[in-house]
């Protein structure tokens, strides 16, 4: 169970010096698979690691530095494309952490650019981005219509010259999800970080990370998202404000679970876990020493859960039938 060793090292980096080559290789493979190798490299700076291990960590750090540079450039390009509309894009997730210089951004892989714009300005924003060289990548009319009707974001766009993807959000959860975050409030409370860019307020950043982790998706890559939550909570000033905010977005229970799990996985382990928490924990720590998912059935269960969360039963049935006819099969 190498994800557990990875978890132990992220919590207490000094344990690295005692690792043998076999355990180390397991940690590296698990960390790569969870996209946490750069984060681990940051945590292990100045700590003795097994011989040959430092080079792997240095490579990972260089990769994440490049990722951050590219992500901020993409953010800048998006800001420039939207500036004529008087719109400042609100960066989400990795790019936001990098732009705001947050701990969660250190060593983090970023990938696609995620931005939030007010829903009533979505059409304008899309037109401006298309003008500036982004193109649609979902050729299927069903997928396109599905995104536009039910999702919290536009169908993904990709830039034709730079080959980088942008997800334009108007809220932080699919419209079909049970919790209904207050998107207007997310926009109203966002804060500028310079360069024509904004990020969510500290409280909303936590709410988004929590929503992303527990209220959307099948928890693949969840350990990294939980690390984000741990870092964001660590930089939170006003805990009571956060509770009020989560309640307002309908994410109070999710926040409580995120606190318990972050405390258990990366923290002091002061909180008791419920039975359901333990299922989440198994899913988050399923990576084995070869970088494989060691709990495939549990993964399938969470995959099914992600669909149940996303849609009411009848709609889900119709969606699955349509996707099946188009030849889509779950992996």
């Amino acid at each position: 169970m190498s994800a557990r060793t990875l978890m132990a090292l992220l919590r207490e980096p000094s344990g690295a010096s005692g690792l043998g080559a076999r355990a180390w290789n397991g940690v590296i493979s698990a960390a790569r698979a969870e996209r946490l190798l750069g984060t681990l490299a940051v945590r292990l700076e100045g700590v003795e690691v097994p011989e040959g291990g430092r080079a792997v960590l240095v490579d990972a750090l260089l990769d994440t530095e490049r990722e951050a540079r590219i992500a901020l450039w993409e953010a800048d390009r998006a800001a420039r494309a939207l500036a004529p509309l008087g719109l400042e894009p609100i960066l989400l997730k990795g790019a936001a952490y990098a732009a705001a210089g947050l701990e969660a951004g250190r060593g983090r892989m970023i990938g696609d650019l995620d931005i939030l714009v007010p829903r009533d300005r979505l059409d304008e924003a899309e037109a401006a981005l298309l003008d500036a060289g982004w193109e649609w990548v979902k050729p299927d009319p069903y997928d396109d219509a599905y995104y536009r009707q039910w999702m919290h974001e536009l169908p993904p766009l990709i830039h034709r010259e730079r080959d980088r993807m942008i997800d334009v959000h108007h809220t932080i959860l699919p419209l079909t999800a049970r919790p209904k975050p207050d998107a207007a409030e997310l926009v109203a409370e966002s804060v500028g970080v310079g360069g024509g860019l904004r990020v969510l307020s500290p409280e909303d950043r936590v709410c988004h990370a929590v929503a992303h982790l527990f209220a959307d998706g099948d928890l693949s890559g969840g350990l990294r998202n939980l690390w984000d939550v741990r870092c964001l909570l660590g930089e939170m000033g006003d805990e009571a404000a956060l509770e009020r905010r989560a309640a307002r977005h309908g994410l109070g229970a999710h926040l409580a679970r995120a606190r318990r799990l972050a405390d258990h996985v990366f923290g002091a382990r002061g909180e008791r876990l419920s039975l359901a928490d333990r299922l989440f924990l198994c899913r988050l720590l399923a990576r084995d020493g070869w970088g494989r998912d060691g709990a495939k059935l549990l993964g399938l269960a969470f995959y099914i859960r992600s669909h149940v969360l996303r849609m009411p039963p009848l709609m889900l049935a119709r969606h699955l039938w349509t996707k099946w006819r188009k030849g889509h099969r779950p992996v």
Partner: protein
Amino acid sequence: MRHSLTLTIGPARFRIGSAWKEPIARLRALYAAYPQEEGVADFTVRLEPAGVGRRWWRPSVRIAGDHMLPDALPMALRHGLLAAEMGMNLQMALGWRRHLLIHASSVEKDGRALVMTGESGSGKSTLAALLGERGWRFMGDEFALIDLADGKVHPFPRLVSLKNASVAAMRVEVVDGARFGPLMRGTPKGDIAHLVPPAAATARMGEAAAPALLLFPRYGFARDIRPVGQGEAFMRLTQASTNYVALGEAGFETLHRFVTGVPALAVDYESGEEALELIDALWADLS
């Protein structure tokens, strides 16, 4: 995983795991001259069943590991050795950051390296293997690793991957049948057999050499030699490099130093003997 092996090739150490015994046993034998002690690996490669039950029923290998291609086709288990080689190449191509990595073969003589790059089928692999049997030190047939600090070429002498007609050609050249791996017919890349590089290649795989000549060989065209300008060489090498973009400024500096310091020629040839003769003449001209 059930079967595994640690393998050091040049500067990179691989941990290879497999659901089946055969690919690991083959690797262990063919790489007998390479360090195989366990240690901290740079990359992990997995050869795993391509689906439920595919360990036993029509066994089919998915190449997986630290770095993966999302839509890679599974391979038959009888091609497992090739799958392992492809898995290792993939890790290097997608993950290696400590040198500028160029899709090229390289050989060394008198402390200086000859680098040959070109499309698949250009003959760069076979030429390097031939030269390795004729007084040159074989450094690698797949990747030339260019040092980011001093521009030297580092060896990556994995097994030579011989395709189609070059298998027979090398069987004439190499008398020792034990140096050949099994002939794998009908792989996605044609008929393939692996060749164990000469002993000097593995014994000296830590020794870099300064590049002295860059060739763009092309097999099957009438004998011709053309100079290649620095700009063209630069552009062609960016395409032949798998990590030029990922290395950023360091990649640019290294490639710039390479093309401004190393003469480049395009060489067309119709037979291996002809190419060897051309290379000997060009090499003699250098000094």
